[in-house]
């Protein structure tokens, strides 16, 4: 591919810029809308840059009296989402590590079938389970509760976390553990002292993937949560659908807030994400 280099590289650069624009522009345009004054949003021709960038939309979001807050209190939404995402991440990493260790290190009848079954169960977490999940949560009294949502998200996230952690553990040489056990450590001690520190990258990967999924979930939260004080950020953002054009700067501001934790994790945890992808995203 070395013939006529300047033309070749110009061409390559142009395609690259085109792909970057395709991937980034929708996000950029949404974030930009959050900084525009409301009247500029309905102006034609469209003003690309805000004439005077303003934080008014963000202020309105947090001022409980304005119509933008529409009964939903954004600080509450944000804290609810954090509570659910963080606590289900803790649950998923803890039980995922236990199970991941068993799948990676111990041999028992049915091991591969069970692990395969867990991964396949992920593929069925769609709209078809909305109705029975609603019935289940009502039957056990966990509807309209953040605890119920946390447990549900943990159940949905556990198979993938188990898989990521098991794959990470398989890369750690068994001899390390074996020698610890020779020296008199029992299995639990050798797991906690020797294996877990080495498996930290896999644990971080599992935690990040789960946090992103739990923070972003909308469908099940929207059917299970009824009280205004228990709604999550995705429900809050989706409820803007009815207020669309007039208040799009507020939609832009709210959407940027919802995306913010994800963007932070994405930019700082890049290598863990790619690791998770290459290891197991193809498994469903």
């Amino acid at each position, binding site marked *: 591919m070395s013939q006529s280099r300047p033309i070749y590289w110009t061409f*390559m650069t142009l395609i*690259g810029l085109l*792909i970057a624009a395709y*991937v*980034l522009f*929708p*996000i950029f*345009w*949404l974030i930009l*809308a959050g900084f525009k004054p409301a009247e500029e949003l*309905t*102006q*034609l021709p*469209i003003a690309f840059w805000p004439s005077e960038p303003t934080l008014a939309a963000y202020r309105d979001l947090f001022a409980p009296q304005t119509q933008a807050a529409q009964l939903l209190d954004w600080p509450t939404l944000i804290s609810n989402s954090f509570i659910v995402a963080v606590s289900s991440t803790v649950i998923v990493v803890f039980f*995922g590590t*236990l*199970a991941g*260790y068993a799948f990676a290190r*111990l*041999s028992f*009848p049915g091991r*591969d079938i069970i692990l395969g079954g867990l991964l396949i*169960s992920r*593929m*069925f977490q*769609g*709209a*078809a*389970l*909305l*109705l*029975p999940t*609603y*019935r*289940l949560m009502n039957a056990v009294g966990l509807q309209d509760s953040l605890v119920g949502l946390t447990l*549900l998200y943990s*159940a*949905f996230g*556990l*198979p993938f976390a188990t898989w990521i952690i098991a794959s990470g553990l*398989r890369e750690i040489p068994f001899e390390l553990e074996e020698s610890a056990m020779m020296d008199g450590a029992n299995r639990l001690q050798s797991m906690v002292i020797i294996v877990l520190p080495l498996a930290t990258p896999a644990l971080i990967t599992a935690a990040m993937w789960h946090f992103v999924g739990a923070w*972003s979930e*909308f*469908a099940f939260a929207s*059917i299970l949560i009824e009280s205004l004080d228990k709604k999550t950020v*995705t429900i809050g*953002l*989706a409820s803007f659908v009815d207020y*669309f054009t007039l208040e*799009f700067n507020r939609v*832009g501001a709210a959407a940027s807030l*919802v995306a913010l934790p*994800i963007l932070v994790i994405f930019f700082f945890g890049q290598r863990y*994400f*790619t690791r998770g992808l*290459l*290891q*197991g*995203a193809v498994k*469903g």
Partner: protein
Amino acid sequence: MNPRADRWLAYSMILPVVFAVLAFIVGPTYDVFTLSFTRFVMGQELGFGTLVNFRALFSDPLFMQVLVNTAIWILGGTFFCVLLGLAIGAYLAVDSPITTALRALILLPWILPDVVTAMAWKWMLHGQVGILGQSLSQIGLTDRPISFLGDPDLVMWTLVAVVIWRKMPLVALILCAAIRSVPQDQHEAGKIDGANVLQRFRFIVMPHIAFSLTAVTVISMIWITAEFTLPWVMTGGGPANASQIMATYIYQQSFQFFNWGVGAAMSVVNLVMLMAIVGLYLYIMRRSWASGAAP
């Protein structure tokens, strides 16, 4: 290290995960099958062992439209997702500073929350003040802005375009990795034999990535089938049911019309379809699955 003790230790360690999956996935799947054969009046169960729900579903005038829309959604979405993913993956496989940066950046649409993606595209596609419609009419391609989400003939394909943006990045990365694993000496041999870039792609790269391509096609199908939030927040199945797909229909019947019988019947249709796709996936992956290797 007694194997018997190990076995019990292992079972107790995996118990919470297995229990969670049985309680929240296997149990509900069984429940929705039972529900679909149960007669409901106003949310009251009135007897099991009936086909009324399926009869009501199949005689709903919307049913055919939902099937057609779902076919466009899944088949159209998968086809263009893989096509675009292959093109971008082939580009990303070239070594250069731009492609290295893009390989990291391109995942952004993949990890953004669906609700955020839905809002971003709704805003760009807005019928009056959307930048996409405005730009097209300004450069003279259309005489007035197109209402992408308001036009019943366009709305389904507009949703497909958005789901491609959302799902294509991972397809591109997987195919990029597959293309990069083609041994360099095969490229060299092709060059010496006088094959041009396209011929080398067709006869050296394509056979090498054929397996990844098949696997990624089926897996995209599963991803797109599972996608509910994007179409729901963008159109809610509208305008006038023009973008009603199985997922949105299930939600509407179950939680807006409280028509649990029909909602359950459609859920079962959806699950059976999903099982067929997952079966196809397992068949394709039968060799690599056991060894635990990703394609």
